[in-house]
């Protein structure tokens, strides 16, 4: 009989490499504990887990159960769900938490539906509200956040990466035991065929000191020339864009900033008509200085911005170009 845990953290570990989001998860679990949750354990699924499991147990100061087996070494959603469902049966956690990644977001809701558990995806905050523990998440592209409380015995949560910051525990880890198990995933019909890395070269935007980034606010394709023209006036600037611009074929995907695109950290990020959904913002948070231009005062982009300008980019960019030319004339 396994010891019960209140918080079950679930992470995938490929070939012994610890995914950094695993630490975000541990930080999230600690925050849950601060708000009253009980014992916490980490379940690691994947392959070559011994070293990684011990590292995480030591650094995180928590129990780690490493589950290895053929159908969990690579990620297959049905095998993941089956294995985690078995583990849940054994320890009855109140919270099952995994990272809000392409994979976590895929299996977590399915697991919740199978178990009749509540599910909140993309959690970026934990608060007490009206005497209840609430999970906070983005709505309407991040314009507003919703507070969600669960009624279920078990709640499945996916946690936004990069929000909860891990600090190694000051005190020595207390009996941070590692358990190794082999996965008893039933043979499913879903077959994993492999993974291919992005082939596009993104060095032009990862190395650019200035990025002029364009979003849906540009309106028509015709207006894209404004963005290219502005970039030409700024030294070594490159044009990048949000997902929607690349989906329309107005920019190549190698110029997409965001989770599914490229992460950039230029000296200046000039966001033109970008609403600022978290999928985009995660890709530019490292920028040193951010200026955003948008007509919508409640655009979430403005929360990630040093200087906010409420204007229509189509009429504003020509004025900005004039101002830049004036300055260049005065300071030859």
């Amino acid at each position, binding site marked *: 009989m396994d010891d019960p845990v209140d918080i079950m953290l679930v992470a995938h570990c490929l070939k012994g490499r610890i995914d950094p989001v695993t630490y975000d998860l541990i930080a999230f679990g600690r925050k849950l504990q601060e708000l009253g949750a009980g014992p916490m354990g980490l379940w690691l699924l994947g392959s070559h887990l011994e070293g990684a499991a011990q590292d995480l147990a030591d650094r995180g100061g928590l129990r780690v159960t490493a589950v290895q087996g053929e159908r969990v070494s690579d*990620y297959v*959603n*049905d095998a993941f769900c089956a294995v985690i469902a078995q583990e849940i049966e054994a320890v009855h956690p109140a919270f099952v938490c995994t990272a809000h990644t*392409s*994979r976590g*977001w895929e*299996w977590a*809701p*399915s697991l919740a539906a*199978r178990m009749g558990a*509540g*599910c909140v995806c*993309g959690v970026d905050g934990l608060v007490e509200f009206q005497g*209840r523990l609430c999970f906070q*998440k*983005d*709505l*309407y592209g*991040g*314009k*507003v*956040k*919703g*507070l*969600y*409380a*669960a*009624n279920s015995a078990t*709640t499945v949560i996916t946690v936004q990466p990069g929000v909860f910051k891990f600090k190694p525990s000051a005190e020595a880890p207390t009996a941070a035991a590692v358990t190794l198990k082999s996965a008893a995933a039933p043979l*499913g*019909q*879903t*077959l*994993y065929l*492999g*993974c*291919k890395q*992005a082939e596009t070269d993104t060095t032009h935007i990862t190395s650019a000191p200035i990025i002029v980034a364009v979003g849906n606010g540009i309106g028509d394709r015709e207006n894209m020339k404004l963005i290219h023209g502005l970039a030409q006036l*700024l030294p070594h600037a490159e044009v990048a864009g949000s*997902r929607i611009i690349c989906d329309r074929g107005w920019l190549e*995907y190698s110029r997409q900033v965001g989770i*599914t695109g490229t992460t950039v950290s230029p*000296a*200046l990020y000039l966001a033109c008509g970008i609403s600022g959904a978290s999928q985009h913002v995660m890709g530019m948070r490292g920028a040193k200085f*951010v200026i955003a231009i948008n007509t919508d005062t*409640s655009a979430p982009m403005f*929360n*990630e*911005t*040093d*200087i*906010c*300008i*409420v*204007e229509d980019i189509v*009429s*504003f960019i020509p004025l900005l170009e004039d*101002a*830049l030319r004036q*300055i260049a004339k005065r300071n030859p």
Partner: protein
Amino acid sequence: MKILVCVKQVPEPEGIAVNRDAHGMAKLETFGRFAMNRFDEFAVEQAINIKESLPDVHIQGITVGPDRADQVLKRAVGMGCDEGIHLLTPTEIDQGPAAVAAWISQIGSEKYDLILCGTMSEDTMNGQVGPMAAALMDLPYATQVIGMQLTRDLSHVTIEREIEGGAREMVRLPLPALLALQPGINRPRYPSLSNLLRANQKVFETISTDTLATVTTEIDCLGFVLPVHARPAQLLTGSAKEKAEQVAGLLKARALI
């Protein structure tokens, strides 16, 4: 081949306003402007692409929502779907992904070879209906699908799903299956005039959700809050020209130009 496409009616991005109420909470106001969830357009387009490349494909759109939601079924038929099913809810309130998935699974189970949906909705951004409905129907599924290829005998589908940093993993699923599609998998078309005229004549099959098995809501939404500023968010004032001059001055002062 029978395809079911899940579409949601959502407020247009410009159709909502967010304000702070007297208690510091956020207040949402909608202006009655609704549209098809942008992410679902890719699912509709994909279904139509399949219909155009294979014989004997029948596409049904399905939506869950109040009276007004039949507008998205009209758009789906306008784009090229054959039929629409409206699961009519008695209230305007969004019923949440668990309930929607449960209702769709009661309609969709064992009737379709392929069920397509978008990766998430623009309004509630849960991305849960697809994987939940698949679980309830015991179907193989994949989300964030950015490429798909049906086998010649239509027994399987090989998909590419997008993972972090633009990498893609490849997975093979037997049909029937449910796929949640990533934007960019295709370029959704505009409805054609002739299809729209046809859609306007159509009477969609309407099923009251009251007649379907009830689902307990495990998650309550208690309220809304405004996002906090991660940076100073200094608002420039003045005329547009003055703001442009301020920006140029700031860039000069920071030695960026």
